[in-house]
């Protein structure tokens, strides 16, 4: 890996990290999209989609309510997508390690968002008198500074995470001993467990939702076994 390889991945991570909260929240930062795009940069769109689906199942648990601290999936899913795409033959462990890398990055990403919000607060406090005077330039510049800082945060996070974790994943894949299909089954089983728990948390208080869930499950299982 060289700097030229890293730049597009880092820029994509920055743009998708920006989408999480600052601009435009169009959900291009969801893992389903971000991992697919991250892998598409390396020419492995379909592989990225599979990883994106597994991460999306985990991300269903994340409800970005206001001031709560939550994982930052945009940049993290780009890192995961790029790592899995770097192994086009899909050796055993590639998907597991890419998801592990994305989860580690999302953890740091959530922390970095808290720090950014604190920094925004410091900038606003320093300009309090101008804000109380209704200074147009101050209102606009605070907004632009916050968004620029968020973009830089996403770029740096993606670049550092990919530079550190991609070689580690490659080295680990060479030593991986668990069967490829079993590894994948464990990963996606864990992800689907999180999705099932999240769905229960979100919908159990909705009248009749459990019957819709069981109805859907019957349809899903039927389609699965007739395919």
């Amino acid at each position, binding site marked *: 890996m060289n700097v030229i390889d890293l730049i597009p991945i880092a820029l994509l991570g920055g743009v998708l990290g920006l989408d999480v909260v600052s601009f435009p929240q169009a959900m291009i930062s969801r893992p389903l999209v971000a991992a697919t795009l991250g892998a598409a940069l390396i020419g492995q769109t379909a592989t990225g989609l599979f990883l994106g689906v597994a991460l999306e199942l985990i991300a269903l648990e994340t409800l970005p309510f206001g001031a709560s601290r939550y994982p930052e999936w945009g940049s993290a899913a780009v890192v995961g997508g790029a790592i899995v795409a770097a192994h086009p033959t899909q050796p055993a462990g590639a998907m597991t390690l890419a998801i592990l890398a994305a989860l580690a990055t999302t953890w740091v990403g959530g922390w970095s968002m808290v720090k950014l919000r604190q920094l925004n607060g410091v900038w606003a406090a320093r300009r309090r008198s101008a804000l109380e005077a209704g200074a147009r330039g101050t209102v606009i510049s605070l907004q632009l500074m916050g968004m620029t800082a968020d973009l830089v945060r996403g770029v740096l996070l993606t670049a550092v995470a990919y530079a550190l974790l991609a070689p580690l994943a490659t080295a680990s894949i060479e030593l991986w001993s668990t069967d490829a299909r079993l590894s994948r089954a464990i990963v996606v089983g864990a992800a689907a467990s999180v999705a099932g728990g999240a769905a*229960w948390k979100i919908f159990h208080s909705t009248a009749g939702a459990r019957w819709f869930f069981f109805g859907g499950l019957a349809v899903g299982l039927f389609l699965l076994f007739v395919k």
Partner: protein
Amino acid sequence: MNASIAADLARPRASELPLRTRIAIFLRLLAIQGSWNYENLLGNGIGFCVEPALHLLPGGIHTPAFHQALARESRYFNAHPYLASVAVGALARAELDGEDPVRIERFRTALCGPLGSVGDRLVWAGWLPFCSLASLAVFGLGASAFVVVGMFLLAYNIGHFGLRIWGLSTGWKHGLRVASALGNPVLRHGPQQIGRLAALATGIAIPLALGRIIGPGHHLLGGVLIGVALGAFVIVRLQNRIEGWRLTLVVLAALALFSVIR
């Protein structure tokens, strides 16, 4: 009719928001959380979004009225980012109608709670998981990356942009009387209906997505499905003690260690 109502009715009102101003506000709404912080939350973002409308105040941007209005609108505010468009439209209308600043302050305070809770239930706990799960079901049926990602982004953003556009025009139309518009059936009953559809999509999506990722072989898939049911039960029982993604991180780290060291 008392004097204040008579004065209220006699005051000249802003009729239409020019298209150019409306577009400027809408584009700024997409960046409303750009300077989100723990001190005044969305406050600066609201000021940033209302600002293009304040240009229409008599005398433009170099008047005390402009500065006072912008300072007022940039104070603490909290709401769901999409439904904040309702507040932005209503506050722009109130400022251009020359409403009493005390009434505007009271209105800002009263609006925070409803716009936050309705938006969270409708979007974060309703529309987003529904679109996500429906796309996962489409993936499970064998669709290509372009179809899965395209369907998700298209469906989600029809709701997303539609809500922001509706919010801005509703807020502008009703001004400080916008509370009645929050009784819209979509906002009142939408979370329940979307919740049911999302529960249906969950049931369909999980087995199909698992099937496509794991590949052929009913024995392994059956075992994983049983494992998923048990895992989901454990995660629900552990609710509020550990988040699922952290638990997954621990499980996968253990698997990686085992697979590499063995």
